[in-house]
């Protein structure tokens, strides 16, 4: 359940960012979770809901956008989105190994929504 410490990391970044919006309230956070990031969306949401109430971000919503995997074939360079994360045959040359991951590994805070109403 490392999602708990991941939410702690998110809170650390939010505290830094919110300094810029002195006195305003955090309404929503949008997070991008790549399918290869090793982070379970449901567990993250659960950890968020467990840690947020009563704190400075009480009531803030967490939206998680799951990012599909996109790779470039290691043999022929074809860019494709594999069906499975475990086995990724290239649709053009059928190579299985050595693909370069272009998208799907990221775990990013993408944007926040702040409200000037206290």
């Amino acid at each position: 359940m490392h999602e708990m410490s991941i939410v702690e990391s998110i809170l650390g970044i939010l505290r830094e960012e919110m300094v810029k919006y002195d006195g305003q309230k955090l309404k929503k956070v949008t997070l991008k979770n790549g399918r290869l990031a090793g982070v379970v969306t449901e567990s993250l949401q659960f950890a968020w809901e467990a840690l947020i109430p009563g704190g400075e971000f009480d009531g803030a919503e967490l939206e998680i956008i799951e990012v599909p995997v996109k790779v470039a074939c290691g043999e022929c360079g074809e860019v494709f989105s594999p069906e499975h994360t475990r086995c990724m045959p290239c649709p053009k040359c059928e190579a299985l190994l050595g693909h370069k991951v272009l998208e799907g590994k990221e775990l990013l805070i993408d944007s926040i929504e702040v409200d000037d109403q206290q």
Partner: protein
Amino acid sequence: MSKEVTIVRNVLEANDRLADELQKNFRVKKILCLNLMSSPGAGKTTLLERTLSDLRDEFKMAVIEGDLQTDNDAQRVAATGAQAVQINTEGGCHLDSGMVMDALKAIDTEGLDILFVENVGNLVCPAEFNVGEDYKVTLLSVAEGDDKPEKYPFMFHISAVMLLNKVDLLPYVDFDLKKAENHAKKLNKDIEVMPISARTGENLEQWYDWLRKKRAEKL
């Protein structure tokens, strides 16, 4: 009124920043740092006991021990004469760079050649958090089943070495060495696979040679 602001910041950036700092420190001091990961009971501590004893005259080594509770493992490691520091995660499922940084304060790094970080036994979470290591080393014992690389892909994808431990038990368990190796190589074509027994000492020379090589590369 509310407004949306684009931020785009990596969630694990704080950990990665500390990991970079640790790595820089290890580079300057020429310390080889290894992050040792496995499920509970795969034999990390036994491997360390053996390694620390066998290479005692060759290298100055230290261990940072991660555990949910108790300092049993740190005591076993310290009995070999190596420096050992315990981190209790109090239920936490992995170590992070901040914990390693704190633990390092209790270690005399002067003239240290190799630092082992024995992560919490768990094939999932430790893979996500760098601890300033040069390489990740994963142990898989043959009692656990040859499908583990397939079931826990990320761990094997990012490891430089897969040690297949407890090969002395092969006559008693259904474990296909080739199958485990093939799965691991499918995930990571560069992974080095070494079948060993930390208990009997079988094939440990291959592991020691790897340590010697990687240590020499840091000089």
